[in-house]
């Protein structure tokens, strides 16, 4: 008993626990580029959007106040490295060249390209398009992907439109077999047409994550755990559905 008590007293003195708080400034300072609707935007001096709501929900989960720091895209990582902010939440996709300096949490949304077809005529891959048409926005990333695929699979009709919404119209109105658009465009469009039954397949992946400084391990673990809780308890899905109609995986 005496040995155990001494052990409890002595061992922490030999190897003291890391008592530094996860967020040493007592506030979670979040950098965001407030020009990415519906993720982050400045409306009349007020920051709103999915990323802003996620930042607030994270802070609430962690139990600290939150402060948003709007910055240009070029300044986000420098602000993190120079301790001007603790996190970046800004529709941020991990960058390989930054991985030696920052850690990225698990993703909270995949904004990759999705192939959208009518639920009663589902298209799961490119081979099913042979002889049919795929609609997309002229000059967009979908255009690049389709031009690359058109060289590899059996011929299909390419249907460029001036806007991605027109591409989705073409599918909804049965003028094209499928459309290739980014997931956010689909989510926003479906708010206008909630009864349209669609079949959705991800063709590319574009995960949005949160960046934390490499040397702030505690901040990272705390943030990642809090984000996981928000994903598990449905908070993130609710936030996404405040801005778009998101009902696919």
């Amino acid at each position, binding site marked *: 008993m005496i040995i155990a008590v001494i052990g409890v007293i002595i061992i922490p003195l030999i190897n003291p626990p890391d008592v530094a708080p996860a967020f040493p400034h007592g506030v979670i300072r979040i950098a965001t580029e407030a020009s990415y609707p519906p993720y982050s935007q400045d409306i009349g001096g007020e920051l709103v959007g999915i990323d802003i709501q996620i930042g607030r929900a994270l802070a609430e989960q962690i139990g600290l106040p939150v402060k948003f720091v709007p910055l240009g895209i070029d300044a986000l990582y420098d602000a993190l490295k*120079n301790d001007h902010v603790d996190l970046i939440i800004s529709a941020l*996709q991990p960058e390989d060249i930054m991985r030696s300096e920052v850690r990225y949490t698990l993703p909270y949304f995949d904004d990759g390209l999705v192939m959208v077809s009518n639920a009663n005529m589902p298209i799961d891959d490119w081979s099913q398009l042979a002889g049919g048409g795929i609609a997309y926005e002229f*000059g967009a990333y979908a*255009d690049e992907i389709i031009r690359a695929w058109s060289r590899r699979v059996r011929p299909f009709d390419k249907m460029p*439109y*001036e806007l991605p919404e027109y591409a989705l*119209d073409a599918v909804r109105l049965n*003028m094209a077999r499928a459309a290739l658009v*980014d997931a956010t465009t689909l989510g926003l469009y479906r708010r206008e047409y909630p009864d349209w039954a669609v079949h959705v397949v991800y063709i590319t992946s574009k995960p949005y994550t949160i960046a934390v400084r490499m040397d702030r391990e505690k901040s990272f673990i705390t943030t990642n755990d809090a984000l996981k809780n928000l994903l598990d308890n449905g908070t993130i899905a609710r936030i996404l559905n405040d801005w778009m109609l998101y009902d696919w995986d």
Partner: protein
Amino acid sequence: MMQLRTIIRILIREWRWIMRGFIVIVLVSQLAPPRLRVMLENPPRQVITNKPKVCVHTDLIHEPPESSIQMSLQLIREMGAPTIVEFFPWAYIERTPDVYDWGQPDLIVKHAENQGIKIIARMGFVPEWARPKDTTFNYIDADGLPHFAEFLADFATRYAGRIDHLIIWNEPNLAFEWGFLPTDPQRYVDMLQTVYEPLHKANPNITVLAGALAPTLEPEGSPNGLDDLLYLQRLYELGAKDYFDALAIHTYGFTTPPDAPPDPRQLNFRRAELLRQIMVDNGDEAKPVFITESGWNDHPRWSQGVRPSQRTAYTLSAFQIVENWDWARTLCLWIFRHPTPRNTHRDNFTLVTPFFQIKPIYYAIQAYARGFDNERILWFNPPEG
């Protein structure tokens, strides 16, 4: 000791298998694709264009393989752009004092010459040894300036006759671009004054480009920066006129078309005219302007972007407008290509993807530079139902 003997015994006993394994490894390694051998084109190529003001900003300094440098420059030549702007970061070239690594700059210069393309060099990015600890690459103070001047003079000497246009620093009217120091035009005037004479001594034919100001409406006292119009006027008031030979201008269209009228309270393409007017008002109209960054972005989410179809149309109109600006020598689009995806809206300024997939806007500019009719219909009519 016993273990060592055992290992030696095994090696002796199994030497045939060890040799066979070695041969297999050598054979398999030969299956790897060979590194691309880069040959200079002979005779050297020339840019054939009807629109000599067409120019692009490149990012060749970050291209690891030489073949990518060559391929980028070939595409630029074929597009009809006789000029590029390229960044030559001091921190990459002089990592330790007086020890220079000219490897990558030499490659860029060699291949640009081979394709008949002229380079405007953008200079900046401070090595660690020339700035205080825990500062960013954009930080420079009075102690660092003489070192910067010395480096620039060495650069100008080395490439005299091959690179005769140097942009001094980038967007000095932003705090971020000066290591988060408060924006101070005097600091930039000091820089120009420090570097101007050594540069002309190093290369008497050099054109020192100042400015390259960020288009911004930041008011006086803002921690982020200062309005480019106010900043330029301040440069003249502080006597900068004697320390540069031409003005570099950054002008972006953001969400407006290129013919949107200039307005000091708006950021748009024709803001360049307001900057030019400040030059004229300060008796500096004899100096030319080089638009070294410009363009539109077509990211689907960025609120400062437009649709790809608009980007193409706006870019072509902007070139047409600049044709009539006799004071402007170039219109350089930001940016031709990034070597790797940036995974942000920055990817949506490019004309060619990191995988060398050519975007439709490239073909539109190429047709314009060749003087072809651009009135083709590129997309379907909106579906109706």
